[in-house]
């Protein structure tokens, strides 16, 4: 049996039973710890600072595993990699953004914004397209 890759092992651990817990000696910046405690006590964003930390950590690890799988796939099938226009349309559709119905406008906005900001995100494209679609005051 082939040895599993690090992303596969991380993925398996993310799927494992969460009832087992352990104390860690992880050192957090004090200000970050205090900000998390405040978010829990004042804003009720999570049952505890520990839960808030675990959720954020899980989310980041899931993103890492997903991105590793996607990157490997793009390497094998370069034509499958979505461009910024594709991603902006996908983001708009997932969010039910009104501009989801205007893919041409989003593609054009992606081209324009990439010329100025090569590292622009799909959300940047949506904002740019929204601004462009607004009638001049």
């Amino acid at each position, binding site marked *: 049996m082939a040895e599993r890759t690090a992303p596969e092992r991380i993925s398996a651990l993310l799927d494992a039973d969460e009832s087992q817990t352990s104390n860690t000696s992880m050192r957090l910046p004090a200000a970050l710890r205090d900000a998390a405690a405040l978010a829990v006590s004042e804003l009720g964003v999570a049952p505890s600072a520990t839960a808030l930390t675990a959720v954020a950590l899980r*989310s980041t690890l899931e*993103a890492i595993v997903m991105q590793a799988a996607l990157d490997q796939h793009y390497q094998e099938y370069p034509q499958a990699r979505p461009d910024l226009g594709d991603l902006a349309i*996908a*983001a708009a*559709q*997932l969010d*039910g953004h009104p501009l989801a119905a205007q893919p041409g406008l989003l593609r054009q906005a992606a081209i324009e914004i990439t010329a100025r900001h090569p590292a622009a995100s799909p959300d940047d494209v949506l904002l740019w397209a929204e601004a462009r679609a607004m009638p001049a005051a």
Partner: protein
Amino acid sequence: MTHLIILDSEAVQALASPAHRKHRQALAYVQVIASRKQRAASIQAVVPTAVRVEAGWDRTSPTWALLNRLRITDSSLDSPAASTAAAIRSQAGVSVADAHIGAIIAAAVATRITVVTSDPADMQRMAGNKPVTIAAI
């Protein structure tokens, strides 16, 4: 805020096959989800197990390796979901897989629900009064 993304059979098939004409579009949705997880957004893609059956997604088969690595969670057709799905199926005359999607929508507590589907009209009907965003693939 939690965002639940439900995949239908066509979305699964598009994701699975690089030869599928919507493959790149399907990957764009997953790429957006991965990017949002990276920013610790509460977002989760799920596949109803009945959809998995319809699409032929066998998690033990190497054919489905890419999808298995994309952190798409199974939403099981347990007893309550089966009852809801049965009612939807007899009322709307839809497939078992689509009725399972309807049952997930009915039970979901997410603040935002998006269904990635090739059949927007049926999904909108399935959602009833519940606000659901439809991403047409």
